[in-house]
């Protein structure tokens, strides 16, 4: 009996050793950011402080969305100019935790702190008075107090907003130009950013249809908000049913909703348009992504800071004219929509030709996507 026990023990020990050893040679699933933690540490300045800091919101630095995009902009600028940099992760999602992370960054010697996500609106509202000598770049938000009664942006803070409707416009335009006639829009919750993406998508499709001289009703868009940012079997089934009924491209606009849509698209061999950042790496079905230029806006704002022209106290709206929105043409999987086509429409947005950018309907202009005046595109609202 004792012998058996000893044998068993030895077996367990070797097995657990093997278990400890085996993950090491296997590459980590998300290998790109693995090196970045170290990159952050490498950038230490001589006195052990970090001049540029980023504080993540609920996601991680490798969330393939907000945090990662902003961090890449910060890192690129820091590496290009040899500035020390680091990111901090709050212990939890709460204003207090964000504030203590900000305190940590300030103590670590941060001159500029980048905070991605609208969750930072409140913490920055408080921090801008607490640390008047530190500069903050608030991505996708405007500082305000807890109950939205006071909006105030101090000279040491700049808020960055995005013209999501232009990103959606580009995606819708490109999809129709590329030959899609039956499209779908699947947003998460109907929050302003998602609504702007959706409205832009419909108007972009309409604009392309007009250019192509299509007849009324030639282009259809199924339009739906899933009511959450989660991947569920219901979303997967709904997306699969759209693909089944002839929809060839769905604009998946809402965090993990995209994962369920991609699951359905892989099954149907159909196409997905990603959102926020270049999602082409997540699935072969992603033909392009309606990108916000997170990295570019962080980069350019940092540049302004070091040039002594920090746009403090302002809210910058990033659109086509300042590279705030884009389609990642290098990784897009279009059949016929070319770089030249893209440059043409992008140029029109930049120059606001015929008021194309300024007359675009946004979230507060119409009640629902069905109310967007379209002649060729038929929008079907799916509840």
């Amino acid at each position, binding site marked *: 009996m004792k012998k058996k026990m000893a044998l068993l023990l030895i077996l367990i020990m070797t097995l657990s050793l093997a278990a400890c050893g*085996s*993950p090491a*040679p*296997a*590459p*980590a*699933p998300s290998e790109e950011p693995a090196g970045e933690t170290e990159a952050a540490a490498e950038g230490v300045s001589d006195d052990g402080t970090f001049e540029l800091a980023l504080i993540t919101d*609920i*996601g*991680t630095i490798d*969330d393939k969305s907000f945090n990662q995009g902003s961090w890449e902009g910060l890192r690129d600028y820091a590496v290009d100019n040899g500035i020390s940099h680091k990111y901090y*992760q709050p212990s939890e999602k709460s204003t207090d935790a964000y504030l203590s992370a900000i305190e940590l960054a300030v103590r670590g010697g941060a001159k500029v702190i980048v905070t991605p996500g609208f969750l930072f609106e409140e913490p920055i509202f408080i921090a801008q008075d607490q640390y008047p000598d530190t500069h903050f770049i608030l991505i996708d938000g405007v500082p305000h107090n807890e109950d939205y009664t006071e909006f105030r942006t101090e000279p040491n803070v700049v808020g960055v907003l995005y013209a999501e409707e232009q990103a959606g416009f580009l995606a819708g335009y490109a999809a129709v130009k590329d030959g899609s006639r039956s499209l779908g829009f699947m947003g998460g919750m109907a929050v302003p950013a998602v609504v702007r993406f959706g409205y832009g998508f419909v108007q972009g499709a309409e604009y392309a249809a007009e250019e192509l001289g299509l007849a009324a009703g030639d282009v259809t868009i*199924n339009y*739906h908000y899933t009511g959450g940012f*989660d*991947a*569920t*079997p*219901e979303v*997967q*089934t*709904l997306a*699969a*049913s*759209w*693909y*089944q*009924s002839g*929809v060839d491209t769905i604009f998946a606009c809402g965090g*993990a909703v995209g*994962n*369920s849509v*991609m*699951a359905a698209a*892989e*099954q149907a061999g159909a196409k997905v348009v990603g959102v926020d950042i270049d999602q082409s790496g*997540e*699935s072969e079905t992603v033909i392009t992504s309606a990108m916000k230029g997170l990295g570019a806006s962080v980069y350019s704002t940092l540049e302004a800071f070091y040039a002594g022209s920090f746009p403090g106290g302002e809210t910058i709206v990033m659109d086509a004219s300042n590279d705030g929105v884009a389609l990642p043409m290098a990784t897009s999987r279009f059949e016929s929509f070319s770089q030249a086509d893209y440059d043409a429409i992008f140029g029109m947005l930049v120059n606001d030709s015929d008021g194309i950018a300024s007359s675009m309907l946004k979230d507060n202009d119409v009640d629902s996507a069905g109310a967007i005046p379209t002649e060729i595109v038929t929008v079907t609202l*799916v*509840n």
Partner: protein
Amino acid sequence: MNTIYFLVQQTMFFSIPLLIVALGGMFSERSGVVNIALEGIMIVGAFSGILFINTFQAALPGQPILLLAILVAALSGMLISLTHAYASVNMKANQVISGTAINMFAPAFAIYVARMLRTVQQIPFMNQFRIASVPVLGQIPVVGDLFFTNTYLTTYLGFIILVLSWFVLYNTRFGLRLRSCGEHPQAADSVGINVYQIRYAGVLISGALAGIGGLVFVIPTSTNFNATVSGYGFLALAVLIFGQWKPSRILVAAFFFGLMKTIAAAYSGIPFLATLGVPNDVYKMIPYLTTLVVLAFTSKTSQAPRAAGVPYDKGSR
């Protein structure tokens, strides 16, 4: 025709997990232990299975890793159900309460451990398990399109589990003892059957199946696991009751629910249903309405195992 193929394929994603989990519940309840912890066990199974896939997906190819993950899910499900078995068999505790405890514990546990390991609660995985078309079988007209294209290994596993469950329950000595412990444990004990042992076995089998069910539920429908199975454990309980604790009826019930769920989610893409002009709320209500109605009508002749929920006490023979 394509619409029908599509509906059948899509129904599988809803029905198979329900079937597996409800069969798990059947083993537990027919041994005399009520198991409302199915939801929690599903979460634990899905969590450990997906975590396993996430860790090893770079090193191993598609289908083998899925089979290993199923094993991991089954083992973790058994482990957590062990606590339920201990509480309800040895400690003679109220079985509903210990089940509820597991249901509350599981999502918290999944979120906590995921955050400790990965700092976010979502665990992503690469879906490399879908089978576009089964070789040879997928070529068969109609049947091939219905059952052998756009499918997962887990679909067939579900049917294998069904057949095995039926066989074990009705054609083996163990099955007979299991059923007798659920109906009249005192009588079973009097002829020398170890009631505690049988009930442990029943609960452990249900834990293994519910764990597998959780993993099977997550894989086809997402690309990450977010500490929830959206209440499908409770739906499986309804399937179990609707199915009258019998494998064949559970099969029918699981597919009925699955089909209704599919139609509710997919009606806007099905031309026939989309043009009917029925408000979408109606489709969403159908599965729940029918459950209410069917249960109301069948409850009178309901054949729940008589001793289910009653702790066995040797002294009260």
